[in-house]
Structure formats: structure tokens, C-alpha cells
């Protein structure tokens, strides 16, 4: 089992995202305390941890939606200060624009002047196909199921072709079967786009299913507990011995978290 602590980050080249000593407090609550980690280019990285361990805050800081109190976030060596089109974000509660149709939502980022898109219509059609919503392009979000909404959320984030995809517990409110399907779809998309993915979840199974590497966050205050490289070929079977071992290993990290806090 490839367990490593935070000091032995992958030192090889191609570090896409570097989180360097980031701390963040809300009023008196310390959400993140000196968090350091890095994500390689093209890597699928899951951040797991108990609720309230600051994993969403960490993701939002990478997105540029929150400012760190201290420390810094580098993407391709540049310091993150604001949100940018290089980092697409998928939200837990979808955050779709209810007044826009499926097509209109996907189009949102393409309408920005910052984005040069010579053939938007073609791009939108591809994305609708990619997430299997071609028949629903004119539907409003209220008419969609949770799983469909999140497909729109993903397509909307992908539309501007970001190099990094940030997902904040994206499948937390869909049923188990839909979630399995969405996992497959997300992995297919990732294989196709070669994006760097940071995926936040509290579900260990989900993390082992998806990730190249899992970062376990400690709570109170949020800091990196350990990093686990998942060395299993995809597609991964939940019932395989390897899978079960990884889940057990990370669960042990979790209970360590609970014991010490």
C-alpha cells in the first residue's frame, strides 16, 4: 500500500497546482491550517475528509472564490488571486442558472468576451452529446433530475475548456445508481480531455473508485493528514480485494483523525 505523508509530495515535474502553506479562518474557526499539497498535470486527485474539515474551503480557494489568510496557491507557477477560465468548477448543489435552458447554461461561459470560441454552436452540440442531454437542450433546470442537473453543471464547466476541473461533492445528492453512472462518465470525460481534476468528497468509496491519488484532510483545524496513491487499474470493481483494502486503509486514516481530535 502506497502510503506517504505530506512531506513526500510527488517531486517530479508537471506540478499543475501547488498549495503552499495555506491557512484560512472564518471568525474564530480555523478552516484550514498550513495546508500544503500539489497536484500533477493530468492527475485525478480526490480530497477526502470528515465534514467540516475545510475540504470545500480548500477547493474554493483553489478556484479563487476565497482568499487564503496566509500561504499561496500556484497554478502553473502563477499565484491564484481570482477565479479564472483555466479552472472550471462544479458545485455541490449544481448552481445552474434557473432562467437559462440546458443549452443556455452550457453556453454561459462561451458568451464571455474573454473566451474565443470560433464555433460555439458546434462546441455546445458536442458537450450536449458528451453528457447525453441532446434531447433536453431546451429544458429548464427545474424540469431535470439531480443527475441530469449535474451533467449540465459538468458540461457548463467544460464548455470553456479549462485545464483544471474542480468538483465539490458533485454527486452528493444523487441516488447510488445514478452516481455509479456519473462516475463512469466523469472518468471517460477525464480520459478524453486529459484535464487535471480535483474532486472533493466525504465518500471513501467514491474516492477510491475515481482517484489517482487521495489526499486525506484532518479536521479541526483542517490540515493534510496523509496522501494515498491508488494503484489499481480502471475500471475498478468495488468488490475486488484491492479496492476493499484501499477503502480500509483510508478508513483507518479517518479513524485516526477522529481519535486524535
Amino acid at each position, binding site marked *: 500500500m502506497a502510503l506517504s505523508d505530506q512531506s513526500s509530495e510527488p517531486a517530479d515535474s508537471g506540478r499543475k497546482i501547488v498549495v503552499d502553506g495555506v491557512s484560512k479562518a472564518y471568525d474564530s474557526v480555523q478552516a484550514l491550517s498550513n495546508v500544503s499539497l500539489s497536484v500533477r498535470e493530468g492527475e485525478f486527485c480526490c480530497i477526502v475528509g470528515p465534514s467540516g474539515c475545510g475540504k470545500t474551503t480548500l477547493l474554493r480557494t483553489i478556484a479563487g472564490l476565497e482568499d487564503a489568510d496566509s500561504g499561496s496557491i500556484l497554478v502553473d507557477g502563477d499565484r491564484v488571486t481570482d477565479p479564472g477560465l483555466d479552472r472550471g*468548477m462544479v458545485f455541490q448543489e449544481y448552481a445552474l442558472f434557473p432562467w437559462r435552458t440546458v443549452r443556455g447554461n452550457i453556453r454561459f461561459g462561451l458568451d464571455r468576451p474573454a473566451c474565443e470560441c470560433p464555433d460555439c454552436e458546434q462546441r455546445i452540440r458536442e458537450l450536449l452529446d458528451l453528457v447525453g442531454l441532446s434531447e433536453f437542450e431546451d429544458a429548464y433546470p427545474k424540469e431535470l433530475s439531480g443527475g441530469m442537473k449535474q451533467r449540465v453543471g459538468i458540461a457548463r464547466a467544460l464548455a470553456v475548456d479549462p485545464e483544471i476541473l474542480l468538483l465539490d461533492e458533485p454527486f452528493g445528492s444523487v441516488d447510488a445508481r445514478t452516481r455509479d453512472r456519473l462516475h463512469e462518465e466523469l472518468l471517460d470525460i477525464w480520459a478524453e480531455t486529459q484535464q487535471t481534476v480535483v474532486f472533493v468528497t466525504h465518500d471513501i468509496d467514491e474516492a477510491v473508485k475515481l482517484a489517482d491519488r487521495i489526499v486525506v484532510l484532518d479536521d479541526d483545524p483542517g490540515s493534510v493528514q496523509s496522501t494515498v496513491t491508488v494503484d489499481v487499474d480502471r475500471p475498478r470493481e468495488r468488490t475486488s480485494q484491492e479496492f476493499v483494502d484501499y477503502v480500509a486503509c483510508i478508513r483507518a486514516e479517518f479513524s485516526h483523525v477522529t481519535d486524535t481530535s
Partner: protein
Amino acid sequence: MTTPTDTGSETLLETGVEWDMPRYLRGLGGLSIFLAVWWVGALTTQPSYLVPGPVDSARAFVELFTTSTRIVAPLAGLELVLPTGLAHLTQTLFHYIPGLLLGAVCGSSLGLTMGWHGVLDDWLRPLVRVLRPIPPLAWVVFAIVWFGIHHTGAAFIVFVGAFWINFYAAYGGVEGVSDELTDAASTLGVERDLSMLKLVALPSAAPQLLTGFRTSIGRCWMIVVGAELFGAPGVGYEIINAANNLAMETSVAYMFLISLAFLTMDVGFRLLERRALAWR
């Protein structure tokens, strides 16, 4: 925001649209009973001008459309000859429409800006608190000394009424814009405040804005009639004019005309609203 819109017209509309038979019949029953009571009341009350009867009132209503009156359009100076009822309704609309539209545009613009901008909100909130409770009709004295009690003065009073209703609708609407949506928009490249207002805040606040406007349609009818009781030309003025001649049935006819005009606008706007907010 609270919308003290008249639920009465809502029920009326629903009954008309759904053709729910038992409800329709009950509504008809209520109306018949009212007419009977009115009729009996009119027959048994002396002198007769105290309660003009339904038949006399209906006759007066018909008369509004069988006689004609010459009116002059403001600004253009154009002379129009129209059936009396329509002529006076047109006079009312000459100040009602500009007052309503200008008030709605100004009110919702200020509401949007204040709701969006914390600093401006800090500056203006106390002022708004003081000015807001003043009933629009209280401004009638200034309408008279500034503009004279004619079209402009009446339009000003309507403006004040429309302004505050739309102001609060827009203010509340923008305050209710979810952070999640603005976050999503900023990760999708919306940087400038103005773009955020246009692309996220405005569409997100559209339901409140439209409800606010619809509320002001009704409220401004009350205000406009009030303003005309002070002498501005229009249906409100005709109510008191007829009453001064003890032609109370003509007053009732004009009251009914106002009700019809309001209902038409309300139903029309509701249809527009439903189309514009199909996404809800």
C-alpha cells in the same frame, strides 16, 4: 418583500381561466345576490341619489359610449373626439402611463443599484427610510405648486407611487440573488460588476421585479384617481364631477370603467409575466 397585491383579482382570474364549473356557479351566485341586494337597497332608499340602482348605473355606463367628448392630447396639442368614457379614460392614461413607466424604471434602477452596492446602500438607506412612508398622495401639494394640477402634476404623483413599489421589489430581488450563482458566474469568466448585474442579478431578480411592476399597476390606479379628485382631468375627476351634479349613477359607471381598465391591464400583464417566467 411583501406584495400587498389584491388577491381578489387573482381569484377572479383563476376562475375565469380554469372554467371550474362549481366555482364558476358559486361566483355567479355571489354576484347575483349582490346585484339583488343593491337593487332592493336602491329601490327602498330615498332620496334616490344616495344609492343609484344597478339599472340606472348600467344605463349611465352605456351612455359613456354613446356620447362623445373632445379632448386635447398634452404636448402634441392634438384634438381627439372619442366616446365620452374612452375620452376620459384616455385623459387618465396620459398621466397614468408616463408616471407608471418612469416611476417603475427609476425605482427599480435605484433598487437594483442599492441592493447591489453596499456603500450606496449605507449612504441612502436612512433617506429611503424617511421618504418611503410618505403616502404618494401627500405629494399632491407639491405637484400643484411645481407642476400645476394637470397631467404633469398627476403624473408626478403616480410616479412617486410606482417608484417605491418598484424600488422595494428590485432591492429585495437583488438581495436574494444566491451567492452560489454569482460564484458559478465568476468561475465562468464574469469579472466586472456590471456584467454580473446584467447576467446574474437582473434575471435572478426578474420574478420580484415583475411582481413589483404588477403591484404598481393596481396601486397606481388608486393613486391616479386620488390625484384626479384634486382636479386633474380623467375618470377620477369625472366621478366627482358627476357627483357634484348628483348624477351618482354616472359616478358608478366611471367606477366600473376604472375596474375594467385595471382588470384588463392586470390580466394582460399576468399573461406576459407567465411567458417571461416560464423557467420558474
